[in-house]
């Protein structure tokens, strides 16, 4: 599903690569946490998987596509098979909840009939059916993230990428969001989630990939991973 093969990403002007010889394989239906300090390379990795960047060295295969070779005009069609959520939700403030979700379908040319059927369904699934007509500013942070999740999954993506989805939320709300993401995963969607939230990582007992300074320093499959306190100087 996702194969990252000895990938190095060097940004111009940076003195060390953001990713340094990273190799990682993620199977269909996996739930993978990417953890690590800021600047450890989590976001760079997500950007590569979404084909927002191309690696300086090595190759990235996602959904059977070699992302280095995929022509620019086909990138949008590739992205339609991916869902993405962020720490800052990225909703359109002047559109209602339903319009925000519908927008992502409109711009990829889905029919009105399809949108009219799919949007209420997905809002119901994330538990916001009754807030379809509200503006994002009228919602709590957790509700906004649920709208963002609804938007990410409404087109039934094969992979959901989540970049710190609970970063702006309190623990109880984070818990709700995680339950939702687990449900999405249980329905067959591969989930890759970057997070700082140790509580969530420890509790969910999923595969955990730990990045530090652009390298994978541990990759624990299934249970057994418990975050460890490390002195600050050791992390850098």
């Amino acid at each position, binding site marked *: 599903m996702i194969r990252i093969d000895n990938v190095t990403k060097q940004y111009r002007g940076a003195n060390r690569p953001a990713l340094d010889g990273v190799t990682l394989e993620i199977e269909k239906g996996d739930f993978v946490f990417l953890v690590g300090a800021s600047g450890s390379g989590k976001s760079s990795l997500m950007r590569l998987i*979404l*084909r*927002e960047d191309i690696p300086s060295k090595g190759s990235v295969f996602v959904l059977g596509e070699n992302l280095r070779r995929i022509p*620019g*005009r086909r*990138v*949008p*069609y*590739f*992205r*339609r*098979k*991916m869902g*993405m959520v962020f720490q800052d939700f*990225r909703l*359109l*403030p002047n559109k209602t909840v339903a319009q925000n979700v519908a*927008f*992502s379908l*409109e*711009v*990829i*040319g*889905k*029919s*009105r009939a399809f949108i009219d059927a799919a949007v209420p369904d997905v809002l119901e699934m994330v538990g916001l059916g009754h807030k379809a007509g509200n503006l994002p500013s009228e919602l709590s942070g957790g509700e906004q993230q649920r709208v963002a999740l609804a*938007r990410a999954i409404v*087109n039934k993506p094969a992979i959901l990428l989540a970049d710190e989805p609970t970063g702006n939320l309190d623990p109880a709300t984070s818990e709700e969001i995680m339950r939702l993401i687990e449900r999405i995963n249980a329905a067959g969607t591969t989930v890759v989630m970057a997070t700082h939230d140790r509580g969530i990582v420890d509790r969910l007992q999923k595969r955990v990939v730990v990045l530090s300074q652009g390298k994978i320093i541990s990759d624990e499959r299934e249970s057994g991973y418990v975050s460890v306190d490390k002195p600050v100087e050791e992390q850098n």
Partner: protein
Amino acid sequence: MRLGFIFSEVGQGLRRNVSMVISIVLVTLVSLTFVGTALLLQFQIGQMKNYWYERAQVAVYLCTDTSPSAACPQGEAGADVKTSVEQKLNSELLKPYVARYYFEDHQKAYENFESEFKGQSIAKYVTPAQLNQTFWVKLKDPNQSAIITQSFNGVAGVEEVRDQRSYLDQIFSILNAASLAAIGVAVLMLLSATLLISTTIRLSALSRRRELGIMRLVGASNFTIQLPFILEGVVAATIGSVLASGAVIAVVQFFVQGYLAQALPFTSFVGLDKALLITPILVGIGVVLATVASGAAIRRYLKI
């Protein structure tokens, strides 16, 4: 591709940038009106050239008693001069170039003069003897007037040979300069219109960068992302070019036909048919310009 969606995006963009859209409309209106006027002037010049060159003749003026003595030392040209000029016109050398000619004597010249300057005081002081007897020569090809001029210049009893086109050429070169000036102004205005369109579209994209980001994220095709912005520029420029076409038509209808043609009844002026011919050219220029300018402006937001 859902057209309803695209059009609602275009409408939103236009509403959000009303003042910029109005400025695009005005700049394209003014610039394309200049283009249209320049084209009209070119048509007008062409039409007048056709009309007047067709009628232009070469005049061979014979000497009178009042002619300057440098050209006419013997004074009034006698019948012998008239005969020799006529013979020359009928000679093998000149005959192939001459379509027809006629002779205007003092009396006829006086009558023409009187009717031309009727009611003006100058008509009272001129006598028939002061006006030249003239051979009016119509050439088969008006461009070959030099042959006649060279044959009769300096011949005894001929005061002057004058190709009427030399008067016309002055008028045409003035009109031509005016039309070139209009084109010059039009080019400058079109340049500023292009820059204005691309700036406006860039601003419009900037104010919608959230939407653009999400569109790219969820996999909207470049075409879908670009189209609303390009259409935004095209709609504004089209309004401007349609107004410019209206302005050109109005100028022809009310100024050229309604005023000039009445004031100068013997001149043939461009008509509405020419104005209507210009209309699609103006709209075409507007649309192409807007497409290129806004397409170029939005391109950098499409980098994946």
